[in-house]
């Protein structure tokens, strides 16, 4: 937790830095509207960066093919002239109205202690916030936050502990290597003797196993033992079918991420099947000044495509302009021919 600081004043807060949130920066920027973006992930790109960075996308207009990460990189370049401010590893927790229907104003707070005050909010939260997947083992909830963690916030939590790390990807291996000097003992458990992580981490891990500094087990979680949130042992079903009881008192499972709607459910918006219903003129929710664009919104005929989200961002920005600059008239202009727009883009 960072110390609460004075509220950040801005025009628009964009919840979610997926492709649609990123492109919203561009459309807002052309209209002189400044934006801050908040995402629980540690980098921009939403699903494209987290779920399929290397896979090809074939239906972005003008790009016969582009990878998920390639699209994100291009969007970042495209919005650079507008100086968007990013706040990563932050979950937008609450959204409070502090204005009126004619002059909306909002206070937005994150779990890390940031507060924003803004004229409009664009919810570009996609399929929801990325949250860690829970491993398939009974009764795990009872230990969460006390002896089972899905992320390392403070390394000190694990000092002197008998720690079980589960998984075979980069997070599992990085933390095995990082926490090995601090923990009393680390056991790494993975379904198969083959690791997705970067080869140098795999080699370093193998070295620790070979020198007896950590234990490696090939198998899957089978059960937890303990009481009052305190883990006393974990049962693992090993690849030969036998069950071993591991002497551990903390566990860090890394089973990837899944999308959950999260705090948006508590913002007093009309929701329909975890989506925010909007109109198709301004992509505004039932609450004036709160827009929903991209995968998170719902309207008749909605297609969960990146290109639809881009269109929605452009139209929502037009309406946002009226809230941010109530006295200014909006002129329709092309980026090709308007020196005014080109100046904003830094090319004229």
């Amino acid at each position, binding site marked *: 937790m960072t110390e609460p600081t004075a509220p950040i004043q801005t025009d628009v807060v964009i919840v979610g830095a997926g492709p649609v949130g990123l492109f919203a920066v561009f459309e807002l920027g052309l209209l002189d509207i400044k934006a801050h973006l908040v995402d629980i992930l540690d980098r921009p790109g939403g699903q494209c960066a987290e779920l*399929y960075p290397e*896979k090809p996308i074939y239906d972005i207009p003008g790009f016969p093919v582009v990878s998920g990460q390639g699209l994100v990189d291009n969007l970042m370049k495209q919005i650079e002239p507008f100086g968007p401010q990013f706040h990563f590893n932050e979950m937008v927790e609450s959204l409070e109205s502090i204005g009126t229907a004619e002059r909306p104003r909002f206070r937005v707070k994150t779990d890390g202690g940031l507060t924003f005050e803004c004229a409009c909010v664009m919810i570009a939260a996609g399929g929801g916030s990325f949250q860690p997947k829970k491993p*398939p083992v009974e009764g795990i909830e009872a230990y969460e936050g006390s002896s089972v963690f899905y992320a390392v916030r403070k390394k000190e939590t694990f000092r002197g502990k008998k720690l079980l790390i589960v998984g075979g*990807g980069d997070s599992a291996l990085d933390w095995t290597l990082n926490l090995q000097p601090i923990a009393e003992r680390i056991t790494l458990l993975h379904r198969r003797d083959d690791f997705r992580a970067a080869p140098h981490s795999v080699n370093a891990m193998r070295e620790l196993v070979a020198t007896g500094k950590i234990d490696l087990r090939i198998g899957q979680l089978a059960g937890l033992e303990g009481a009052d949130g305190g883990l006393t042992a974990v049962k693992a079903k090993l690849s030969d079918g036998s069950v071993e009881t591991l002497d551990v008192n903390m566990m860090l499972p890394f*089973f*990837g991420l*899944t999308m959950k709607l999260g705090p948006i459910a508590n913002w007093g918006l009309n929701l329909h099947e975890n989506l925010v219903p909007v109109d198709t003129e301004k992509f505004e929710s039932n609450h004036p000044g709160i827009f929903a664009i991209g995968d998170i919104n719902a309207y008749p005929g909605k297609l969960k495509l990146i290109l639809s989200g881009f269109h929605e961002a452009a139209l929502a920005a037009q309406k946002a302009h009226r809230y941010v600059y109530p006295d200014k008239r909006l002129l329709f202009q092309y980026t090709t021919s308007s020196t005014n727009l080109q100046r904003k883009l830094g090319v004229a």
Partner: protein
Amino acid sequence: MPKISFIDFKGTERTVDAQVGSTVMETALRNGVPGIDAECGGACSCATCHVYVDPAWQAAVGKPSAMEDDMLDFARDVQPNSRLSCQIKVTEALDGLIVRTPEKQG
């Protein structure tokens, strides 16, 4: 047209027609077979289309690719006959295929 049987965790069997060239996951979804979520739509990115291939069919279906095996790490209760059904292409040779769906996906 090849037929595929899906047996859910309660033992209910559903046999449907499958199109050659489509995937086992698509076959399930198209025919309203429950037990397969397929959140990522077949991109081998979600592991919510997990099935157990009947042991008699394991050889014919084959082993997962390296990419699929990586993704299987995120499925529940993975067995030696586990596959992601979006990565199994239907062929004439798979006529009669039996797969079991797990109690829970993802």
